[in-house]
Each structure stands twice: as structure tokens, then as C-alpha cells.
């Protein structure tokens, strides 16, 4: 199986886990998407370094883009975004969603539900309670 196929199957599988298996339904929460947007930005940045500097290299026949065995990675184009294969975005999305869904699921089952997060240090607890 190619990287592309596994990535698509993984995203679909984790979506089913979040919505139907663990029923954590993070995909339906705005807070998840805000957190994912932050992580997406940093993924482009950090993964861009790893793939642009060719710390990680990809085989031409494993993904949609042009492999490192054929040509140097480009910033955008040839199946790449910020030097990384677009499949890496699917890998990252699936991994983050599964880890966060399991984190929420464990809390819902009563494993260290507390102490809860917040308030931010720039707020006093009294301000946050109001």
C-alpha cells in the first residue's frame, strides 16, 4: 500500500473512532479546531524544516508528489506543501485527533479528570469564576 492510501484510510478510521467508537466527538467542537489550527501552523513550520532539509526523505512511488530519489523537495507543488508531502498533513491530523480523543475518553472514564486546566496565569481565579 502507498503512503497516500494508508493516510486516507487512517484519517477515515480515526474520524470513526472519534464520532462513533469513543464518541468523544472532538470533530464537532470549535475548541478542537482552534487547537488543531495552532498545531497545523506549527506542523507546517517544523515538518517543513525536516522535509526541506531532507532529514526525512520520501520514495517517489509511495506518495502523490515527486520523491527525494528523483528531485529535491520544492516549497509548494509536486504534491508538496511547505516542502512536506501533503500526506504528512493527513498523518498529523489522524495522529493528533486520535491522541486527543483518547485523552478526553480517559478523562470521561474518570482517569485523572482533575485537576482541570485554567484559568490562564494572566487571570486570577476570582476573575475566571465570574
Amino acid at each position, binding site marked *: *500500500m*502507498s*503512503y497516500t492510501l*494508508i493516510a486516507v484510510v*487512517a484519517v477515515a478510521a480515526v474520524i470513526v473512532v472519534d464520532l462513533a467508537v469513543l464518541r*468523544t*466527538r*472532538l470533530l464537532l*467542537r470549535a*475548541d*478542537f479546531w*482552534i*487547537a488543531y489550527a*495552532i*498545531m497545523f501552523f*506549527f506542523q507546517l513550520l*517544523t515538518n517543513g*524544516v*525536516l522535509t526541506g*532539509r*531532507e*532529514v*526525512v*526523505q*520520501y*520514495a517517489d512511488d*509511495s*506518495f502523490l508528489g515527486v520523491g527525494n530519489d528523483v528531485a529535491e523537495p520544492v516549497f509548494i507543488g509536486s504534491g508538496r506543501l511547505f516542502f512536506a508531502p501533503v500526506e504528512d498533513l493527513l*498523518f*498529523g491530523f*489522524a*495522529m*493528533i485527533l*486520535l*491522541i*486527543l*480523543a*483518547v*485523552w*478526553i*475518553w*480517559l*478523562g*470521561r*472514564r*474518570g*482517569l*485523572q*479528570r*482533575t*485537576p*482541570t*486546566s*485554567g*484559568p*490562564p*496565569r494572566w487571570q486570577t481565579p476570582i476573575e475566571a469564576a465570574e
Partner: protein
Amino acid sequence: MTYLIVLTFILLGSAWLEWGLRTRVLRRWRRLLLALLIGGAPFLLWDIYAVAAGHWWFDSEQLSSVMLPFGIPLEEFLFFPIVGFAGILTLEAVRSVRGGPMGDEPVAAVSAKSDGADG
């Protein structure tokens, strides 16, 4: 060293949330470790498969020389817990600012927004 530097950046770039936004993830370390184990393991297995199948490989010149079983460099293994930890910190940081709910609150707390003893 490139990969180690990137991992350090991810760790430092997110770890401050534990203090600055009082995410309290480290104080829930058993839940953290179990979430990283259960949620991260399938992706580590995918990584091992992909390396074995030749989908991707690593430039040993830019890595520490520590190689783990199944052809996984130390940095690549550390990627999973570090990125997972950063993800959980980010989610809890958003909750710290916006207040949730996120789906793991006690039933009574969703409306009352008060919290009692652990689980």
C-alpha cells in the same frame, strides 16, 4: 542534529503552556502517558511499516547515532510522545482560555461548571 533541534523547539514551544495557561497536564501524568501510548502506538507501527516498505527514510548525517529496533532513529521515536504531549497541551490551553466543555466533564459540571473530586 537538525531533528533533535526541531523536537526541542516543539517541546519548549508548548511546555510553557503548562505554566502560563495552567493546563495541569503533567499533574495528570497517568492519563497523559496512557493517551500517548494508546493514541501514539498505531502511528509508530505505521512508521515502522513505512520504513520497512521504503515509503520514507532518514538522513543519518542529520541524526544522533542512536538507532532503535526496526530501523527507527531515536529522534523519530521521540517524535510521537513529544508531538502528542504538545497536542494535549494545546487542547488544554484552548480550554483554559475558552472554558470548554470538551466532553470529559462530570455530568453535573457541564451546567454548573464546578468540579469535585477526581473521577
